[in-house]
């Protein structure tokens, strides 16, 4: 029951829509090419500032009028920063979709970007970054990506304090002007709406030629060393990452099966070996993290300092033992888990809008849910084992925050 529509505007912008008849809501994601890896050197954090500044007045609305207009439509909104995109997402009642898109066209194309408001947005971005110092779990993963991915792909969306301090309203406004390179903008929508009128509306609202292009960097290898950051907390926060093929490389389902066997659920290996059998951690888990040309399996564990060394060793052992064999029963459970997540996501317009946009950007096409289901179904122990022998997960980048350094 797939209902995907694809429309390309004359200016190159992509619009993707999937109708979901069993729900009343609609969600959309607007991916703009202002991700952390596409900003000029020295401007790390500009996307975080813009995520706030753009909402401080647009079109003929003041900051207050704009927020009121968004709130009056009952929009649940958010912004997100990935290496490639500054993404605006929203969920709302399906009948309000067009009105919401009109507001977002103003936000993206006619923001006021007043200088005095810039100072406030930058101040908030700096505060949010400093807030990570009181959130070691969040911070350790940010530092881990920076250690793991080739620069600029590990640059933190939240920015760096010195660069945020030095950022000017002029620089940031120039970056905002680049935001609308239509050939790099993807709009995805899912839920209860008619595609045709939305296409016509978007065509009218976003009919604008490219104003600039995001910065393109030549990737430089990441350090991938062990880094320890001392703090006085109660726990050691351990981040580990090992290389995996990116989704575009064609082993997505084998990778997902391996991660699921390792950490997909409470009967998975990490939970069983680290928590159930040894009581080492409350929080332990691994997940697949894919960019366009780079990917890895990222793992987090939090444990009191005296147990940190053993925790690390058990986790590494569990990664390493995957290539020694998986059972048919483990794969069956992994497949059932992956399929049931897929079906539950199909009930949520927000999850589907995110999936559509992600597929289009990373793969150049949107996989129908039935294709994903079939591919999961087709996984065999042999195929997953072939994959694991080629990707034995033996080398790790590690970052820890806590009272006591460990040996990696």
């Amino acid at each position, binding site marked *: 029951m797939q209902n995907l529509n694809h429309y390309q505007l004359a200016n190159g912008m992509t619009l993707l829509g999937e109708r979901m008849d*069993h*729900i*009343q*809501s609609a969600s959309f994601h607007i991916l703009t090419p202002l991700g952390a890896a596409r900003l000029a050197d020295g401007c790390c954090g500009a996307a975080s500032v813009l995520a706030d500044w753009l909402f401080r007045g647009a079109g003929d609305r003041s*900051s*207050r009028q704009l*927020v009121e207009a*968004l*709130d*009056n*439509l*009952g929009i*649940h*909104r958010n912004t997100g920063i990935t290496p490639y995109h500054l993404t605006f997402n929203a*969920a*709302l009642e399906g009948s309000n979709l067009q009105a919401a898109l009109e507001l977002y066209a103003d936000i993206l194309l006619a923001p006021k970007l007043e200088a005095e408001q810039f100072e*406030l*947005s930058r*101040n908030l971005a700096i*505060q*949010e970054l*400093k*807030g990570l*110092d*009181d*959130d070691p*779990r969040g911070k350790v993963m940010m530092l881990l990506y920076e250690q793991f991915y080739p620069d600029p792909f590990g640059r933190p969306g939240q920015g760096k304090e010195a660069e945020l301090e030095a950022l000017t309203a002029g620089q940031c406004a120039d970056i905002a002007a680049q935001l609308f390179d239509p050939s790099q903008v993807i709009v995805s929508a899912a839920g209860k709406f008619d595609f045709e009128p939305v296409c016509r509306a978007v065509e009218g609202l976003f009919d604008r030629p490219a104003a600039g292009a995001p910065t393109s960097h030549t990737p430089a290898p990441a350090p991938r060393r062990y880094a320890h950051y001392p*703090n006085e*907390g*109660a*726990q050691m*926060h351990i981040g580990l990452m090992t290389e995996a093929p990116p989704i575009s490389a064609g082993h997505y389902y084998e990778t997902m099966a391996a991660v699921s066997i390792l950490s997909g*659920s*409470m*009967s*998975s290996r990490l*939970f*069983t070996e680290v928590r*159930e*059998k040894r*009581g*080492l*951690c*409350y*929080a332990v888990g691994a997940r697949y993290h894919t960019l366009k040309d780079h990917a890895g399996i990222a793992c987090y564990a*939090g*444990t*009191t300092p005296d*147990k940190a060394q053993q925790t690390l060793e058990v986790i590494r052992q569990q990664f390493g033992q995957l290539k020694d064999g998986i059972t048919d*029963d483990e794969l069956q*459970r992994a497949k*059932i*888990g992956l399929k*049931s*997540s897929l*079906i*539950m996501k*199909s*009930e949520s*317009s927000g999850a589907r809008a995110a999936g559509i946009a992600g597929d289009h950007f990373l793969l150049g096409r949107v996989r129908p849910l039935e294709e994903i289901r079939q591919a999961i179904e087709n996984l065999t122990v042999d195929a997953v084992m072939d994959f694991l022998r080629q990707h034995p997960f033996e080398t790790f980048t590690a970052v820890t925050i806590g009272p006591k350094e460990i040996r990696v």
Partner: protein
Amino acid sequence: MQFKHKQLDNGLRIIAEVNPGAQSAAVGFFVRTGSRDESAEINGVSHFLEHMLFKGTDTLSALEVNEAFDRLGAKFNAFTSEENTVYYAAVLPEQLEAVTELWAQLMRPTLRKDDFDMEKQVILEEIAMYLDMPEFLVFDRGREMFFKDHPCGQSVLGTVQSITDLTVEQMRDYFGRRYAPDNITVVCCGNVDFDRLCSCVQRHCGHWTAAQADRRHPAHRPAPKKVYDHKSGLFRQHLALYSPAVSIQDDRWYVAKLLSVIVGDSSGSRYFWSLVDPAIADTAMLELASMDQTGAFCSYVCCDPENAAQVEDILSRIFAELARDGIGAAELEAARNKVLSSVALNSEQPMGRLVSLGFNWVYRSEYISVLQDIEHIRSVTVEQVHDLLSQFRLGDYTLYALGPAKQ
């Protein structure tokens, strides 16, 4: 959408909101017990017991339990609060009966000593994890100060001391008193065959014996006070504010809910315009925490330590203005639209509907459909909000603040 309910002879209640068009189904076992039902000596036992239910029965080991859930493709978990312990799972409709059967079996756990000792380590790690989360710490400490001797002030997790000292015998005794059928409600929603579900629950739970589990409701007389603490290694100032609010049973609940959005939503609220928009704080929110015959408005603010005094002045001004001038009609409309859209979005997935459905029955013995929910939200007036503001004074708050150690 159809509502059905039934009570077994031993007092166990079963309710369902049936939606034959849903792609999935969700089931929850709602046990009316939590940290407020504990003595200080066994503080944390409800939450610890929640972990222990996953350790299995006389015929199922912990690993077998986890494997069984995973074989059903269940998205399952549990949570413990001051007054409820809820076990839930979302599955495809054809697996609903099997997952309900599994939960029903787990509701009669063995509570083995060696599992208890191992899980105690995990609980102590969980307590350590929250020690590194100042936002959680200030809420916990603020609630304890606000409720003082009232049992709702007790920590859900317990303390390192109470957990270390807890024995498996104490847990078994608590279990026997609290996990009785007349203290449990089975809640279902989505694509559900109610009759089959009832026979499944009857088969597995029909022989359990009732125990008339009670709950104390001592009077709560808050005496506002302020405590400022410091902790080395912190960088930001974290504040939690508590003031009295309506209980879940109170008919003014919807009025209080809208007031909480007007005052402390993440966008467009009084807090937003006075604290976050001018970059005085990076987070400021107010939530309604209604409970069994009591309740609190609780706020959390995070800011630069040097802005802490200014934040408190601004909060006091916001509360004074609300008390003096009340709210505007446009503010109420915006809050109403936000809440209406949350209700609609949450109700799209059975899992999103389960908790509000269950709590309405546990606390109020009442079914409130999504449409009735929407009607209640639509009917709130500015005058009702003003009445509420005069009855529950936001300015009379208890404050707990935690910031960096002084140089």
